[in-house]
């Protein structure tokens, strides 16, 4: 059983990718594929909703940071719903919550 599922939802100009499961070295390529596909459709905003994750380590963090870097370069917004405490704390311990555009729910992307 794959331990990460990526669900995509398209709204006007926004692609929401909702992640369910565990995000690590083995599953981050699945996220990267979904991101590449979403970014190819040139949305104004990509939302990464991590609220369904039960685990994320620095391999997942790296995928999120690379998506953020591409978004900045391309003039796109990347908003991140940082998920449950076990996931959110990876952003806070690294102080990357200050760099990333964190929102409370996917609906807050506007």
């Amino acid at each position, binding site marked *: 059983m794959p*331990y990460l599922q990526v669900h995509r939802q398209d709204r006007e100009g926004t692609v929401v990718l909702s992640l369910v499961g*565990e995000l690590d070295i083995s599953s981050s390529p699945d996220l990267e594929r979904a991101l590449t596909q979403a970014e190819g459709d040139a949305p104004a905003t990509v939302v990464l909703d991590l609220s369904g994750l039960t*685990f994320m380590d620095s391999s997942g963090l790296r995928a999120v940071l690379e998506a953020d870097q591409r978004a900045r370069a391309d003039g796109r917004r990347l908003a991140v719903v940082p998920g449950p405490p076990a996931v959110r704390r990876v952003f806070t*311990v690294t102080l990357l919550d200050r760099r990333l555009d964190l929102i409370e729910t996917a609906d807050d992307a506007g």
Partner: protein
Amino acid sequence: MTGLLDVDLVLPYSPQAAGDARAALGVLSGRVRPELLENLRLLVSELVTNAVRHSGLGTGWVRLEVRLSNDRIRVRVTDPGDCFEPGRAAPSIYQTSGWGLFLVEQISDRWGVRCGEETEVWFELDHRRSKKPVGN
């Protein structure tokens, strides 16, 4: 580590090794505080991932040893890959990689690297509440 180990596992070199190592920690559930188990899962995942990423080419392996004692949890992750000098400084927030060992530095109570025939990275988590504030 001498005496009985609570977890002693040798995993083949593959991306699945990190998830398998985390799953093996399930035996400690109920024996350590949930927050501590969460920290343990994260740091074990980081060290096993590092071993897999840096273990070199071909068939490698990574060994995970965990030992519970009255005051702490001691973890040792060993692989046949090249040794390294641990950097303890925070990466720049504009770096996308290099965060794994920074998490180990921030969350563990102590850690280190031992170079020999094999590369060993170890860390300890104390059962008492960490002196370091860890996120929220």
